[in-house]
Each structure stands twice: as C-alpha cells, then as structure tokens.
C-alpha cells in the first residue's frame, strides 16, 4: 500500500477547501499541503451557488445589523461569538476574493455592488451576476494554482480517518482512476466536503453531495451538531430540483398561488408592495416561505402538475433588461429545463432541499473536539446559521471559516508530532476492508439505487418540512432496516478502474449515517424552531431547547443526542419578526 506524507490534508476542493488550502500555504509556506477531492475541484458544488455573498461594505450598513439579521434569521440558535467573527471578517474576505479576480458586479463608478436578500434588513449581498458561486469557485481554484506547495489528489475518495493517540493523523483514500487504496498521513486534516442534500429525493444539490466528510468525523467519534435543521429553499424547479436563486425575489419577483394571489401576506410576512421590501414578503427567510407553501398546499391553493404541486414565481414585471443583466442564469435555466421564458411566462417552483445547517461540531477556529481534525463550510456547524440560514451567508461562511480552519490547522500542524506507526496498520485494515468486503464477494441481490431511493423516500415522508414523532420513528426504523439492506447490495461492477458503482455504494453508506443523525436529532428536539417544525410540538421552547443537538454515533443502535448550550453574547432571544 502506498503511503503519502504531508503536513496538512484538506478533504474537499470546493470553496471552503480551496480557501483553507490557500490559507495554509500563505500562513506557513514550509508546510506540505495536499487537497484531496473525489472530483476535480472546479466540479465542486460551490459552482452551483447563484445569489451572492453577504458582507458589510456600504456606509448605511453596520456589523451589528448583519449579526442581528443572521441571529434572528437562525432563530437564536446561532453562536453569537461565531456570528460576530463572521460579520467582522466577511468584508475583508470578499475584498480578498476581489483582489484575486472575482468578477463582482459593480456600480457605475466601479465600486462593488450589493443587492437585497432574504431576511436581511439592509442590502449587503455582493454578487457576480447570478453565478456567484461559479465565479467564486473558479477564482479560488485558479488562484490556488499559484501556490506550488499545494499538492492535489484529484478523484481520490476518502473512506476513513486515521485516528491514534486521540488525534487525527491522516486518511485512507481510494484512487478512482486505478482502484488503488492509499494512506495519506498528516499532522492535521481539514474536512470541507459540503453537505448531504442527496439523502432527500428532491434537492438542488449535485450528485456528489452525500455527506462524506460528516460521516468520516461521525464514525471517528466526533459529534454532528444540529443535524435536524435541513433547509428547504422555496424556489426550485419541479422535476429537476434545479435552484432558482433568491436573487430573483430580491430583484422583485413575486410568489403567486393558483389564483395569482401573493399568498405570503397571509403568513405574517407583511403587506404586498409593488417593489421589494427588505425582510418582508418574498424577502422573508427561507424556512418561513417553504412552510407557507406547505400550508397553501393543504388549503388546496397550489397548482398541481405531473411533477408535484407548485406555485408560480412571477418575474414578468421586471422586464427583459433587468432579467438579462441581473438574472441571466435564471433565464437560461428556465429556457433549457422548463421550456419557458421568464420574461413572458410564470415559473413553476416548489420548496426543495438545499442546505444543511447542521454538520461536524466545531468551535470558532474550525477545530473539532478531535485534536488535529478541523472542518469548514457546509460540512461544519460552527454554528453561524442556527436553525435557519439566511441566503448569501453560506458563500461568506466558506471563505471566513475556510480561512480560519486553514490557519488553525496550520498552527496545529507546526507543533504536532509526525504521524506514528499504528496508523499505518489501521490503513492496511481499511485497504483489506475495501478490497475484500466492499469490492469482494457480496451476496444479497440488492441494488444501490433501490436502497438509496428507499432512504430518500423515508426522509421525505418522515423528516420533511413538517415532522411529528410517529413519522420520525417510522423513518428511524426504515433507516435501521436500510443499514442492514445495504450490506446485501451486490455490485455489477467489481473492477478497479474508475468504478463509480463502488463509489455510489460508499456514498450510500455515508448517507445512511447522515440520515440517521438527522432523524434522531429531530426526535430529540421537541419544539419547533426555524427549519425544524414539529406538528406535535409547534411552539418554540427556549427554556428547554435553546441548545444545539450533538449526535454521537453508537456502535449498535441509535445515536446518543446530547444538548450543547448556545453562546449568547449581545442579542438575547426575541421574537422573530418579518414584514412589520
């Protein structure tokens, strides 16, 4: 088995991973950094983000305002010291990206432009047309090529963390092109593998979003925090689930039910005005908008289509010029995937799983409870986003916390001892497991796709926008059964060379762990807050649940879920008010 030794490994080559790698290379050029990704970095899901990244830059804005919007948007489950760090460091991070070439959209005088976004009282969302994530990712990737010290292992799939003497000392990875299993040893590891939206059947997420990094940490004994909080973005295209950015609403789009009525006014989100009003109506927070959709559907006021119920997003009154300038990708996507032109027609949309607020538990520096292991981006839960993320905070988060985790990992690696002997034995065990158990003789006749579809159905039915005890218990039981069934999956492909079926199997095993954490954390939280809504516990309960959930994997049976108090600094919990 080949062993490769580095000082810091970054797992995942998206926005957070690339930013972390660059931060490490800049902090300490002597460190040997390696970026390990199961896809080429420019394929990472950051590329699909559309709307923008928030940071305080305009004179009418303050850090306090950004922090308050974020904390209230997260229904007070955000750790306020982390939010303070985010809003403070955000402007410089976005300016750094600008210096690195990110084509932020500009005002006529050349300054960076900002737009309104959901849940924010003041305009502070920087944007690059409506392909912000694409431009951010390519800027980061191309800039990372400058740093010769950053090695890359493209299309290597990490299957486990190597842990010994209470610290993380590397990973085991499968090289897809050859099927060879390698040990990558390091003094510190940063997980930046994104979220796990693919545990649900209908999601904006790419195929690669399978919660791999979350599971790596979970299986190493690191808790997953706030996993019950899954964000449904209110506007996804039916059938494909492709995202229609919130920017469409911040530029003035309306959500209409089957009677052409702007139904959000019935849900305590303000009065409808002809132009967008911040923190009101269509610019309310995503959880409230998705919940409003479900209520409209129950009232029979949504439109039925062959691909489920939808409402309409109306952009016609914006005019072709605004749409071409500010929302060109939206137009392209509607023309390509819905055969309609948003300049003249209504866009059918429905809530779609988009983001996981929860993830690997970290502190403000990106450190997990396991020494040597760090996490950043959607993989991590700091927590910035609390019970509901505001749009455009995620792209900012990956930069701020990607950099923080990178710097912290670099500092740790400079002091930590070199990886030791026992991890090599662990790596050999893992190689044996992959070659004999995963790729070897398997029986049972189950197919990856069947088990995966069953998991997705269970999550959609039991852990959707509205949940209750019996639904969650049913989902939990199903996941237990599926964990047994996945052991009976037989592969059509037993080869070594670019075997994507075995990757799908490993990803499915990862997703089952993520699904288990989601469902059991949801069972534990007996209240409704933000994106987690329980019909049997419909009120918010600060007395008992102003706390994060920490899910610890058990060897047998359901995870243990413990509370972790939220850090409150300056903003005591209050009422979440929009539209008034």
């Amino acid at each position, binding site marked *: 088995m080949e062993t490769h030794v580095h000082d810091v490994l970054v797992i995942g080559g998206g926005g957070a991973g690339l930013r972390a790698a660059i931060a490490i290379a800049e902090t300490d050029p002597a460190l040997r950094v390696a970026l390990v990704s199961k896809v080429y970095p420019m394929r990472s899901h950051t590329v699909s983000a559309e709307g923008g990244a928030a940071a305080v830059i305009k004179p009418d804005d303050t850090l306090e305002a950004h922090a308050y919007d974020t904390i209230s948007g997260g229904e007070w489950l955000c750790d306020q010291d982390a939010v303070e760090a985010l809003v403070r460091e955000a402007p410089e991070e976005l300016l750094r990206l600008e210096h690195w070439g990110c084509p932020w959209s500009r005002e006529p005088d050349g300054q960076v432009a900002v737009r309104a976004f959901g849940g924010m009282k003041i305009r502070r969302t920087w944007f690059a047309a409506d392909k912000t994530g694409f431009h951010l990712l390519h800027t980061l990737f191309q800039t990372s090529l400058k740093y010769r010290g950053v090695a890359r292992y493209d299309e290597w799939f990490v299957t486990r963390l190597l842990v010994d003497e209470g610290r993380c000392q590397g990973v085991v990875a499968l090289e897809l*092109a*050859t*099927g*060879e299993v390698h040990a990558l040893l390091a003094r510190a590891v940063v997980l930046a593998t994104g979220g796990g939206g693919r545990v649900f059947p209908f999601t904006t997420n790419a195929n690669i979003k399978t919660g791999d990094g979350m599971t790596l940490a979970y299986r190493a004994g690191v808790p997953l925090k706030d996993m019950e909080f899954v964000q449904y973005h209110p506007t996804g295209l039916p059938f494909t689930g492709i995202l229609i950015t919130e920017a469409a609403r911040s530029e003035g789009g309306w959500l209409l039910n089957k009677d052409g009525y702007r139904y959000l006014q019935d849900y305590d989100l303000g009065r409808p005005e002809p132009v967008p009003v911040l923190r009101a109506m269509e610019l309310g927070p995503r959880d409230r908008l998705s919940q409003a959709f479900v209520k409209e559907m129950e009232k029979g006021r949504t439109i039925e289509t062959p691909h489920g119920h939808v409402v309409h997003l109306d952009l016609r009154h914006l005019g072709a010029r605004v749409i071409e300038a500010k929302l060109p990708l939206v137009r392209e996507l509607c023309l390509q995937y819905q055969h309609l032109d948003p300049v003249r027609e209504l866009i059918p949309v429905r809530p779609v799983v988009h983001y996981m607020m929860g993830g690997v538990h970290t502190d403000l520096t990106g450190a997990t409870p396991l020494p040597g292991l760090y996490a950043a981006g959607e993989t991590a839960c700091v927590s910035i986003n609390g019970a509901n993320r505001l749009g455009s905070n995620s792209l900012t988060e990956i930069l701020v916390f990607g950099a923080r985790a990178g710097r912290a990992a670099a500092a740790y690696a400079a002091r930590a001892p070199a990886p030791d002997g026992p991890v090599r034995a662990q790596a050999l065990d893992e190689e044996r497991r992959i070659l004999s158990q995963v790729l070897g003789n398997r029986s049972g006749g189950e197919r990856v796709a069947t088990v995966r579809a069953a998991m997705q159905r269970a999550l959609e039915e039991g852990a959707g926008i509205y949940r209750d005890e019996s639904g969650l218990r049913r989902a939990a039981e199903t996941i237990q059964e599926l964990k047994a069934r996945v052991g009976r999956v037989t592969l059509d492909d037993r080869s*070594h*060379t670019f075997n994507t079926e075995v990757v799908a199997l490993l990803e499915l095993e990862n997703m089952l762990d993520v699904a288990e954490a989601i469902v059991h954390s949801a069972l534990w939280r007996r209240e409704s807050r933000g994106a987690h809504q329980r019909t049997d516990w419909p009120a918010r309960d600060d007395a008992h649940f102003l706390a994060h959930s920490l899910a610890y994997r058990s060897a047998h049976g359901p995870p243990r879920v413990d509370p972790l108090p939220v850090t409150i600094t300056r903003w005591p919990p209050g009422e979440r008010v929009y539209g008034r």
Partner: protein
Amino acid sequence: MNPAYRRHHPKWHRARMPIFWWLRKWSYFRFIARELTSLFVAYAAVLLLVELRAVGAGPEALARFTAWLRSPPVAALHVVVLLALLFHTLTWLHLAPRAMVVRLGSRRVPDVAVLMGHYGGWLAASGLVAWVLLR
C-alpha cells in the same frame, strides 16, 4: 480478462485519428476546403508575376500570354480559380469580426458593422483598381 492488465495499472485507450477525419463533419470539410483555397491564392499570385513578366518582355510576349489566357481550357480553369478566390476572400472577411473587437466608448461595435466595414473596404479597393485598369 485482459492479459495485458496489471492490477491498479490500467492502460488508457488513445483513439487514432482517422485520415479522413475532415469528412466526419460538414464544418470540418468547409475548413479544409478553405485552407486548400490558399493554393489557389498562391497560383493567382504566380499568374500575376508571369503576367508582369510578359508585359515587361514586350507586346509579342504579352499577346502570346493573352492568347493563352483566352483558350477555353485555361479560361475554364480560371473560372474555378476565381470562385476559389471568392470563397477564400468571403470566409476570410467573415472571420474578421472574431479577431477584431472594436469598442466605441462603452459599447462594443456589433460584428455585423465590422463585417460591413470590411466589405466596404474590399469593394472600395476593388473599385479603385477597376477604375485604374479600365479607364
């Protein structure tokens, strides 16, 4: 099993490019045709030099040359050459807007305008040459 395979060392397959790759697509064929017309341009240049030499060699030489030009097979050939030259010129002109991006203040001059400008220049130059020769 492929006996040539060594575990974890798969051989990548490199496809050979067929000799008649340019027949695969209409746009490839047009490209090759366009490139081949440069042979006709070379021919036309040589013809011009020969003509100049004939002019310099005296009225008899010029008359012989002109008679040769008038013979039916040569005239037919030169119709083909003319068509090739036109094809060459037109494809060249139509590519000009790709290479020349002209900005007037804040707007980019549309490709059609650049193309028309080229056509205009060509016709003006041709007109001038024709006037000089035919007056």
